[in-house]
């Protein structure tokens, strides 16, 4: 769907993007991750033709990216902005027309989305009459109004309450089910784990990780296991022999606990099961996978260490 090759962009002496290449597949949710100043916004702006790259190229469905392709993109920037004095309806029609729709099509699409979000009564309201969260929701609608094939969302969940975060997530997944591609730039790693198929991590303008989210987590797993049990913590500790090391414990009340264990030597999950039976009532044992947050931190630290070295 979108192929980015050797993209480089500098602002004066500052190199914002350094030879970045990746691709987006049709119908996937792609996470664009990175600390502040990593070059995510620059990358997104280049894709949206707001900025010109110094070198490299972008292809959309096999063709070199041109301005006409922008009609196929829906872009929600991180810094939200709307004309405060315009009504929701007029604003929607205005943006719809800028993206190639006519007024009737824009109005029809707006009605569809307002009804879908159960906010049809906002149609005649001026933007300044809406709360921040309401305006965010309207802006999301404006982004997808023209049914773009590629949707670029920069921090789409910021400013939303948990209910609306779930609502937007559901919409993103629904659009994915329709075969649309979504590029998501966010610091909310939990969302990335939850909805992204693949992710790319940028640091100081350089790509440091790219892959399927599950694979990235697998690659960064530490071999720890989590045991959830009911019983006595002293009994649990006594049952473990030198082949296991307790890393962290959590108490849930009513003699229910969770412990993260690291295996030593040749210890296996079978060994663990056998030593625990009879001492505590084991509810679950599973391999502890790092969250994207940990993957993110580990990768950034590794990159920084490599740079120092």
């Amino acid at each position: 769907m979108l192929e980015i090759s050797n993209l480089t962009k500098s602002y004066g002496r500052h190199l914002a993007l350094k030879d970045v290449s990746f691709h987006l597949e049709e119908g996937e949710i792609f996470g664009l991750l990175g600390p502040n100043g990593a070059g995510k916004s620059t990358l997104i702006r280049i894709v949206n033709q707001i900025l010109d790259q110094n070198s490299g190229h972008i292809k959309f469905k096999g063709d070199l990216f041109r301005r006409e392709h922008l009609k196929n993109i829906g872009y929600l920037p991180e810094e939200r902005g709307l004309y405060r004095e315009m009504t929701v309806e007029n604003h929607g029609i205005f943006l719809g027309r800028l993206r190639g729709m006519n007024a009737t099509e824009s109005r029809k699409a707006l009605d569809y989305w307002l009804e879908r979000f159960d906010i049809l009564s906002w149609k005649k309201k001026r933007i300044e009459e809406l709360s921040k969260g309401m305006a965010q929701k309207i802006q999301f609608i404006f982004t997808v109004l023209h049914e773009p094939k590629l949707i670029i969302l920069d921090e789409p969940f910021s400013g939303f309450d948990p209910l609306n975060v779930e609502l937007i997530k559901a919409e993103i997944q629904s659009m994915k089910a329709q075969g649309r591609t979504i590029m998501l730039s966010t610091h909310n790693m939990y969302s990335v784990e939850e909805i992204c198929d693949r992710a790319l991590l940028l640091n100081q303008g350089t790509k440091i990780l790219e892959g399927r989210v599950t694979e990235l987590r697998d690659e960064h797993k530490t071999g720890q296991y989590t045991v959830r049990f009911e019983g006595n913590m002293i009994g649990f500790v006594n049952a473990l022999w030198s082949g296991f090391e307790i890393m962290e414990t959590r108490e849930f009340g009513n003699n229910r606990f969770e412990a993260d264990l690291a295996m030593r030597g040749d210890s296996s999950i079978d060994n663990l099961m056998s030593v625990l039976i009879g001492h505590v009532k084991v509810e679950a044992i599973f391999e502890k996978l790092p969250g994207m947050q940990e993957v993110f931190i580990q990768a950034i630290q590794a990159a920084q260490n490599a740079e120092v070295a």
Partner: protein
Amino acid sequence: MRNSWIIALREWSERIGSRTFILFSILGPITVLTVLYMLFAYGGKTATRWNVLITDPTNLMEGKIMAQKDSMIHYSFADDYIEVEEFANAKRYQNYDAMVEVNEKVLSNKTGFVFYRQLPSKVLEKKVQYQVERRLEEVLVKQFTSLSLLDFKKIKQPLNLSFRNVYDPHDESQDKRAWVGLFFGLVIFIFIALFAMSLLRSTSREKSNRIVEVLLGSVRPMQLMFGKILGIGMAALFQFSIWLVTITIGLLVMRTTLFPDYLQSNLNQSVQIDSQVRATNDIELAFTSFEYNEFVDLVFDRVQFTPMVLAFILCLIGGYLFYSSLFSAVGASVGSESDGQQFVIPLILLLCFGVYAGYFAMENPEAPLTTWLYYLPFTAPSVVMVKLSQGFLPGQAYSLILVGLILLISSLLMLWISGRIYKNGILKFGHRLKLGHFFKWTKNN
């Protein structure tokens, strides 16, 4: 172009729907008409009424002077000689402001004297001269010819001799019409200042509330800038049209209702004169209206409104394009909304200089600097209006085309430069704007 048009329509509808626009559209022309009315009604008049005593011992004038009473002068007649000292000091003559001597010598010498207590205005002077002269003319016609007064009026055609300085044969420096040109120039710069400032504010607001990033996802920076300039310019032109129509209607209403004497005087030639009295009245009215008020004369007769309005629209468009692209570039370059103030002041000063250039051109029409200011796009809108109001010689019309071309080309050039600054500056935030940024962003791609 389609996207620029969509942006322009949004700007247009935002402005014409705003209260400020509606208020300015209504109050603006009303204020201009009120000022014009005050000038028409009081501008050329002396505040006091003049009480004139005519000494006519031979009863030449038969105690008559005007068929109609004059609102500014009241005449009384005395049938004996009055010494100047007596008139000056006697208590019974203290109510009279002036004394006119009419005797047999006046007819033979064609010279008379008017003794005043306080120097009258030129209008009063001319009125007294005209009214006494006309009455004596009637007396002479009656005495020495067999013509009726009506026939005499038909034969007698006034000839206006305009006195011109040989070094200023077009009377440009003294021409009151130049003030009208300057007024037009001033209006152009007021419109430019108002709407270009509105453009600057709107651009910096779009930048600070970040809607610009959403827009730039669909339109090029140049298209956005041009759309905004076009939309706000359309609103300015629309407002100007409202002003033009309202002021024109107001002037017509004034001409036909509040100042009908002037209209009558203009129609003199077509009016069927059916009596001597009527003829006399009309001539008097023609005179009184001619001298009634220099502003009435200036506005209703001497200004060539059609070419002036056409030139006004062209200068407004050219000047607006030129200045608005500058203001737009500043709006796009600011780091915060308040940041632009330091660069707005020089732009406002530039606009003030534009107005001053018009005044300079009026005062020094032949100065070499005026020629430069005429062609300079910063000052052309006001100087062109002044020069146009003063009138061109047939061979000078080319200069109007030339200045139009210069204004158009420099406006396009300014649009291009500002477009580059706009493109490079619109997504830069949080910096403190320096002059160097403009040069840097003009060069950068």
